[in-house]
Structure formats: structure tokens, C-alpha cells
């Protein structure tokens, strides 16, 4: 028989266990823990500037909006997180409704226009994205695009429109429609989209599907298209953007939020981090980054090739009213989730 001695096996097992122990033991306690659902790349660009400035050591736990929000709610008071950042605001409302946020400092809120701060004052917006429609320029002209995002539910759009219903991005848009148009109109709109639309995995796939001509138009956020243009244009050169404007639900601005957890033991440093994000230095760094999302502090602005913030004409929506659970129920009912 081909036998290996049990001693050798035991030695291997022991050394492996030791490695694992070392791995667990050697992680130093960071000064701040940030649960981050904003794009990982963006925060990896911004955090080092803050660390440089303050000498604090920040660790990111990256995930998606609602996954991290669910995790924070499950963690409750036991959460190791100090700060929570999201891509869209509905996830902030989930954590706020669970009463887990400490109010953000006035210094953090001051630079941000008040419509991007919830009435509770428990968190603040720091960057935003505009809803757009991308259309394939070989198949359609700007004039062919509908006046309202609600028109995509009409039968003439059957098979011609793509979107990505799972994930927080699209839910933020549905939230806005619900807030502006009411439940019945949202239900009708979702049913129409379900019948007409090609459902895709994420916004990048939407961009690709439009560019390749698989569908004529796609609902997404502005920066996917601009970023691809900045990179090489491989997925966007055959397409163009249509901004709805005119306070249409389709011109909705989705706000990324930042908040400090009540359970954090590092309240001051956590507030300092949010102040940095909304302050001139952080906002300028974000404007100059690859992200191409709209800074909310008027002192910073995006490069000239991106449609200027003050020409967007978004509808007025209370960021705190965007309602996750009701949206999920409607989307589930429509068969989108």
C-alpha cells in the first residue's frame, strides 16, 4: 500500500492551521471602517487623499447598495462600520428607517444644496447621476426618442428598449416614478416595460446592447456612456445620449449618500470623513476622477464634455421619500424581480 505517515499529515495540517491563525491575527485595527457601495475604484482614489490629509487609516468593505444596507440592519448595534456610502439613496433610507444613523454634522451638510439632504438630516448626498436614454445612432435619431420615460411602456417600443431591473440603480428610477406619478401609473409603466423590454444584467450590458444594435435604446445613467467615451469608445461610439429634462421622471437625479453609523465608536473621525467627501477638496478630487458623476458641491464641476449640471432640469423629489420596499413590491408584482 502506498501510505503517507500520519505524522506528516498532521504536520501539514498544523502548519496550515497556523497560517490561517496568522492571517486572522495580523490584521491591524483600522481607525475607520467604511461600508462602501459606491464604485470601489472611485473610493480607492479618494480615500488615500483623506488618509494623507488626516493620518487616519481607513478600511473599505465593498459591496452593493442593498446588500450592505441589509447587512447593516442585520448587524444593528453590533456593526463594525463607522460610515456607510451608497450609489443611490433608497439604501440610505433603509438604514435610516432602522434608526441606525447619527445625524451628520452641519459642516458636512453645509456645502450641499438642501434638496440633496433628507429632511431627517441623518445623512447627506455627495455625488449624483442623471437618468438618460442611450440610443443607437444607426437605428434612431434624437427626434425619435420619446418626450417622457413613461412612453417606453407604449406598445410601439416592444423589443426596442433594454434596461437592468435587478440592482439598486433601476430601483432608484422606479422610486422616482412612484414618487412623481403615483402607484397606479407606476404599475402600468412597469407592466409595459416588462412587456416591451429586454432585461439585462447591469448598466454596462445595457450600453453594449445599444451600441451593438441588439436594441434601439436603453435606460441607464449618464456616466456609463461618458466613461466609455473617455476610455476608448468601444462600447459607445455607435450611440448617443438623450436627456429628458423638463422635470420628467426620466430626468431624475439619483443621489449617492453618506452617513455616520450611530454605533460607531469613532464619531468625530467618521464625521470628518463625511465632511471631507462633501468639502471642496474631496468634491474636486471626485470631479477630476474617472467617475464623471456630478459633484453636489457647487464649488466643483465636471469637465466640459459632460452636459453641465445646471442644464439638467431634474424633477424635484425628496431624497428621503424614495421608498425601497414599496418599489420592490411593485417590481415583484410586475415580474421583474
Amino acid at each position, binding site marked *: 500500500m502506498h501510505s503517507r505517515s500520519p505524522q506528516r499529515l498532521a504536520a501539514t495540517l498544523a502548519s496550515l492551521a497556523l497560517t490561517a491563525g496568522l492571517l486572522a491575527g495580523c490584521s491591524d485595527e483600522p481607525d475607520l471602517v467604511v461600508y462602501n457601495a459606491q464604485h470601489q475604484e472611485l473610493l480607492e482614489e479618494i480615500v488615500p487623499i483623506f488618509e494623507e490629509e488626516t493620518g487616519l487609516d481607513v478600511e473599505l468593505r465593498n459591496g452593493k447598495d442593498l446588500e450592505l444596507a441589509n*447587512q447593516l440592519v*442585520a448587524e444593528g448595534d453590533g456593526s463594525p462600520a463607522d460610515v456607510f456610502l451608497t450609489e443611490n439613496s433608497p439604501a440610505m433610507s433603509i438604514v435610516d428607517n432602522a434608526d441606525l444613523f447619527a445625524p451628520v454634522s452641519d459642516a458636512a451638510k453645509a456645502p450641499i444644496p438642501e434638496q440633496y439632504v433628507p429632511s431627517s438630516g441623518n445623512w447627506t448626498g455627495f455625488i449624483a447621476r442623471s437618468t438618460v436614454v442611450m440610443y443607437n445612432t444607426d437605428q434612431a435619431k434624437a427626434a425619435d426618442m420619446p418626450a417622457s420615460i413613461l412612453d417606453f411602456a407604449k406598445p410601439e417600443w416592444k423589443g426596442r428598449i433594454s434596461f437592468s431591473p435587478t440592482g439598486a440603480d433601476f430601483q432608484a428610477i422606479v422610486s422616482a416614478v412612484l414618487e412623481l406619478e403615483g402607484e397606479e401609473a407606476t404599475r402600468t409603466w412597469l407592466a409595459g416595460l416588462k412587456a416591451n423590454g429586454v432585461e439585462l444584467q447591469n448598466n454596462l450590458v445595457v450600453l453594449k446592447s445599444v451600441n451593438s444594435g441588439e436594441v434601439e435604446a436603453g435606460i441607464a445613467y449618464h456616466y456609463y456612456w461618458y466613461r466609455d467615451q473617455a476610455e476608448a469608445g468601444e462600447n459607445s461610439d455607435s450611440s448617443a445620449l438623450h436627456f429628458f429634462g423638463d422635470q420628467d421622471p426620466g430626468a431624475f437625479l439619483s443621489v449617492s449618500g453618506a452617513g455616520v453609523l450611530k454605533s460607531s465608536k469613532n464619531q468625530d473621525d467618521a464625521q470628518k470623513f463625511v465632511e471631507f467627501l462633501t468639502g471642496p477638496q474631496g468634491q474636486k478630487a471626485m470631479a477630476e476622477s474617472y467617475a464623471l458623476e456630478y459633484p453636489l458641491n457647487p464649488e466643483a464641476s465636471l469637465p466640459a464634455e459632460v452636459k453641465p449640471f445646471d442644464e439638467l432640469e431634474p424633477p424635484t423629489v425628496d431624497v428621503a421619500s424614495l421608498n425601497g420596499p414599496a418599489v420592490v413590491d411593485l417590481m415583484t408584482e410586475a415580474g421583474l424581480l
Partner: protein
Amino acid sequence: MEAYELLVRPRIGELLRNTIGLTVATMASTAALGVTLGWVVERTDVRGARWLHALLVAPLAVPAFVNSYAWISLNPSVVGFWGSWLVITLSYYPLVYLPVVATLRGLDPALEETAWALGHSRLRSFATVVLPQLRPALLGGVLLVGLHLLAEFGALQLLRFPTFTTAIYDQYGSTYNGSAAPMLASVLVLLCLLLLVGELRLRGQRRFARLGGGVARRSEPVRLGPLRWPATLATVVLVALAVGVPAYSLLHWLRVGSSTEFPLDEIGAAVASTVALAAAGAVAATLCALPVAWLAVRVRGRWATLVERSSYVANALPGIVVGLALVTVSLRVVPPLYQTAGLLVLAYVILFLPRATVSVRAGLEQAPVLLDDVAASLGHSRLAVLRRVTLPLIAPSLGAGAALVFLAVSTELTATLMLSPIGTSTLATEFWSASSDMRYGAAAPYALLLVLISIPATLLLIRERRHES
């Protein structure tokens, strides 16, 4: 929404069709491929059988989601049912092929020769004599394929084919405290139980060990004659699809990807934590598998079977379900353990215990109780018997079990994202974050390293199968 309404809605019907359809189709195709390839490599005079064998096992080192990324990034139309069926079959067939080859190698050719002597054709003898003897290996392999598929998340999400597992993930990504995800999970558990019961039924009680004295001869290879070259060519084409495509795609993206970069400290840290976590998970799961397998083999009976089989259920649950449950439980019971490597390893044990149990069990089945009894009668204590007789006998199966768990842990995504110590990244999580942003170039180094660190475990598995023969 009411639980009943959540269950009885069109979306559930769609998911049920997708999940069952893909599971059945993949089980059928991996069974056909596994048996055909096993027979061609082991029983015919096909060219370069030894090389083909090594290449045919190689897909085990390529995680299914890396394989999906390879296909989809080269050809975006490989999506939906047919794309998933193709890519998953190419990733999973070694789970059937390996045990089939091992069994074929150990079969006594005398039975088959008797059938020929009685005037049965080659094909008929294969169907009536060989195939029944392959049944345990074939069913075991196909069961593993089914269970893997029920839990598969990364590959199917990339291939845009919604099943219960991807839908559960999406639900957790969108619902606050909703009941939809647990509802979906319960349907998934039901499907898993169906598979387990089905396998128990089909396996039956028959025994297939040879009874004669001496050792079985190796059988004479079947001469393929004019078919020899086409058979070789067909096998090579399959290998090219299963191994060549991912290899080409990875190298392609490393070369052309505009986002390709090699941040060495990040990659180094990801490699270190992946290897350490996978090793710790492998050791812990193998240690836990020992008593479970011992109960199933040496004690037997209904309860032992129940213990063994119940561990399979968690295997079919997506990592996110087990992960969220552990978040809640650990914070209530042992808060200091939360987000430590220890709790993460516990999650791995819960998720991957059956993979270790399967191997350890097979090893124990072949270790005669008689030897233990003899050692005991010679005055050894129970512990000494375990250390000096039983463990050395089953050491290779312990290694194989550990290797299977190692491969599974190194590619686990969701539980790792949720439960790992803050600041930890693994090759799988880094790969996932890059590839779901479609930064194929940035994803490539992580995918390549995942394949590289999987190679030793895969080699261990190949060697182990040789010992069994």
C-alpha cells in the same frame, strides 16, 4: 406580500423551468460525456491516452465562473440556456469522468468476456455488463453535478441565465427584510432533497465487488480500427473547448485589455488570503467530515444516513443564505467572532462539508474493519488504533477531500464578501468586482492566479484516483 402569493407567481414558474431544465440537461450531458470519454481513454487504443487523461481532468482547476467569463468575453452571444448549458457542461464533466475512469480501471474484464462468449455484441455487453457496474460512480458524479448546479451563482449570473440561486441573490440585493428570498431558498432546498432521494433510490442495494481470488487483470484495449483517429480528434476538440478557450481568453485579455494592470501588493495580498482561507477551510471541513463519514460507514442505519445526507442541504444553498444567517446568529451569540477568519471558516465548513465527506466516506468503505479489530486485539488503545491503522489507510482520501474543499473555498464569493475580516480581499472577490464592471483586462490576472493556485489540488485529485484503482 403573502408567502403564498410570493410562491405562486409567474416569476417562480420561470425560475423553476430554468433551474430544472438546466439541471436535467447538464446532468444528462455530463453523464454522456463522462462515460464516453472514460471508456475511450481507459478501454480503447486511442492515441496519447495518458495525455488526454490529464487534459480531460484539467477543467477542475478552472472555476466555472472563470470559464464563463472566458467564453462570454470572447463571444457575448454565449448566454441564456444554451450558453449556460455549454459552458457548465464543459466545466462540470470531470466530476463524472473521474469516478467513471477509476471504476473502469478496477473492473474485472472476465465478466464482460463471459458476455461475449455467450454471443452478446460488444455494445450489448457494455450496456448489460459494464454500465450496471458503473452505476455507483456515475450516479455519485451526476449527483455532485446536480448539487453544484443548484448552488451555482457566479457563472450563471455572468451567462445571464436566472435560476433560483441567482434570483435569491438578486432578492437580497433589492429587498429589505423581505420574505421572497427565504421563500425561494425553500424551493431550492426541496429540489436538493429530490436529487438526494433520487440518487439513493437509483443506487439501490446491489454490491459490485468481485468475489474471486487473486487480482483482476487489466482488460485488453478495444481496437478502434478506422475509428481511432476520429475518436482521438473528437477528444482533442473537446479538450480544446474545455481548456483551450479559457487559456486563450485569459492570455488574450492579459495582452489587449485596456484595464489590465498588475498591482503587485494587492494581488499578493489576495493570493495570500485566498490560500490561507482555502487551506484553513479544507483542514476544518476534512476534520469535521471524519466523524460524519465514520457514522455513515461504521455505524450505518437510518440516523447515520440522515446526518450524512442533511449536510448536503447546505451545500445546495447559495453562500448568501448561509452568510446572512451567520451574520444574525453570530452577532446574537458570539459578537466578538463576527467578521473574523474563524467565523468565515465555519461558514466554509457548513457550505462545503459534503465535498469532504464524499471522499472520506469512500476511503473508509475500503478500509477493512478487520484491521482495526486485529490492532485492538493486539492491545492497542482506541486512539492508537485510529492513529496507527485507520488514519494511514484513509490518508489519501482525506487529501482528496481536502483538495475538493480547497477548490470550492478559493472560488467562493458571497459568504466571503459578507463575513471576511474587514479589508480582506480574495482572488475570487477581486475577480468578481472587476469582471462585473466588464473590466475584462483587470479581471484576467486574478482569474489566471485562481487557476494557478488550483493546480496542486487538482493534481492531488488525479493522483488519488490512481491509488483507488
